[in-house]
């Protein structure tokens, strides 16, 4: 088997991140190259998700969830790939939905996605992290293997307990996110895994951390403790998205007065590891 790009197929991508500071004599801006391998997906309005119909490239090993033998992508997956020309999103008339209309879907809050969430998703995916919506399993097989306490959202447990593998599972997922209040002060949004060329959706292991996005002031101690109870054992990362030209993701972790904390490790971002 060929050695696959750990970043999930970005090797043919000219530039993966947004333009940063430009020189004064700009001239022609660099542009993304049109790709040969373009995935086709149908937008399912009722679901608020896309059904992938023609899979191109290895990126789908680390993107989208599997139900009933099909891959479904959340709006953040769709927009990220559409922006870089790796995905054509089609409507029910087989016509390509333009980027402007996909931006409108995000503006309308379809599928529980906020702009802040998308910015964070895009930033992490561009760096090679594997990112999935919190509260759903990658596959049904993943759910059956995972211990009962792993996934934080009771909604996702309910889907698996039903034992159904047909389209109604997807419907329950979309209902779960339709009910999400985007403007909640802080909530877990994504499960983030490290870059991994051997990643398998059926046995992904625990996420590296669960990302919570703050829309307002920094979280209080009580809010953090409440979230930690929901996400038993998985480290939390809190993120605040600041809009501005010098766009940086500010992330921080509050150190709790928790007797079982044995160590705090700083890499490029801060996280707290709770050891038994």
């Amino acid at each position: 088997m060929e050695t696959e790009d750990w970043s999930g197929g970005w090797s043919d991508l000219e530039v993966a991140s947004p333009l940063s500071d430009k020189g004064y004599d700009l001239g022609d801006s660099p542009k993304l190259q049109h790709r040969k391998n373009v995935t086709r997906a149908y937008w399912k309005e009722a679901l608020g998700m896309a059904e992938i119909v023609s899979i191109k490239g290895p990126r789908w090993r680390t993107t989208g969830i599997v139900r009933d033998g099909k891959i479904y992508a959340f709006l953040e997956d769709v927009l990220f790939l559409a922006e870089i020309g790796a995905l054509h999103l089609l409507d029910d008339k087989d016509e390509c939905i333009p980027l402007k209309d996909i931006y409108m879907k995000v503006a309308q809050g379809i599928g529980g996605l906020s702009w802040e969430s998308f910015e964070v998703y895009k930033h992490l995916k561009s760096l090679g992290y594997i990112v999935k919506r919190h509260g759903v399993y990658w596959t049904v097989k993943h759910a059956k293997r995972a211990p009962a306490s792993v996934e934080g959202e009771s909604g996702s447990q309910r889907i698996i307990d039903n034992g159904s593998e047909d389209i109604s599972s997807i419907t329950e997922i979309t209902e779960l996110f339709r009910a999400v209040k985007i403007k909640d002060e802080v909530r877990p949004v994504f499960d983030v895994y490290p870059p991994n060329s051997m990643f398998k959706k059926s046995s992904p292991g625990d996420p590296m951390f669960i990302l919570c996005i703050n829309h307002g002031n920094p979280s209080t101690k009580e809010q953090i403790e409440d979230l930690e109870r929901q996400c038993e054992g998985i480290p939390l990362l809190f993120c605040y998205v600041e809009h501005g030209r010098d766009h940086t993701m500010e992330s921080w972790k509050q150190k709790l007065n928790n007797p079982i904390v044995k160590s705090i490790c700083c890499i490029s971002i801060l996280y707290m590891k709770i050891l038994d």
Partner: protein
Amino acid sequence: MGPRWKGKGSEVKALANPISRSILNLKSSLIKSNSKGILTSCSVRLACNPEQTNLLNQTCFGRCEMTIDKDQWFQFTLEEACYLYFSLKCIKIVGDDDSVKTDNDLWEYMTSKKVDFPNVFKAYSHLRDKNWVVRSGCQFGVDFVAYRHHPSLVHSEYAVLVFSKGKVDGNDRLRVWSDFQSMLRLCGSVAKTLLILYVNTNGEKVIASSPSCLDGYSVVERTITRWSEERCREDQAVGMK
């Protein structure tokens, strides 16, 4: 602290290409193409042709998002979008239903998104009207940083905090001396002067539904620097060898 130009020829280039002229050209280009931005939560997105892309980069409005589209998509902060809309009057803005927002609709939206939006926008406009290039100061823990010209030609001179005069609760920055010390220490480390912009409402009530309340606002500029008693004494010394 005077301007710190980056490299040879930057100052000459800047003087030959004033920001004010680039902004006029940008305004004219956006009006000509009847540009419409999409309001998205706390930002506005706009599709721009190559000429507009160039001018937006020269004047440092927005952040370019690279996409496969033939037009470049720019993302503006609320302040930038409002400056283009209310001050330069060169774009329209549509909501998620594709309908064009009126002045009052847009103002109401902006003031609902950020508590202190009128004061922050007034401060932003105050600097932009004077042809300073204004960017987010989040990397330095301030509201804005101000550049004399394009950031590729010159380092920013001012780290800007926006304070509101007459605010009942007071401002939540620089409340105790250690706040001053840490802020001044930071500014010194990054070679910027701390500039406080006091926005005075002059008794005008913030009318959430209309931007006309800003007409009565005024802005007072005040820089804060550390006074070094030893250096000052040496600088002022007479007859010493």
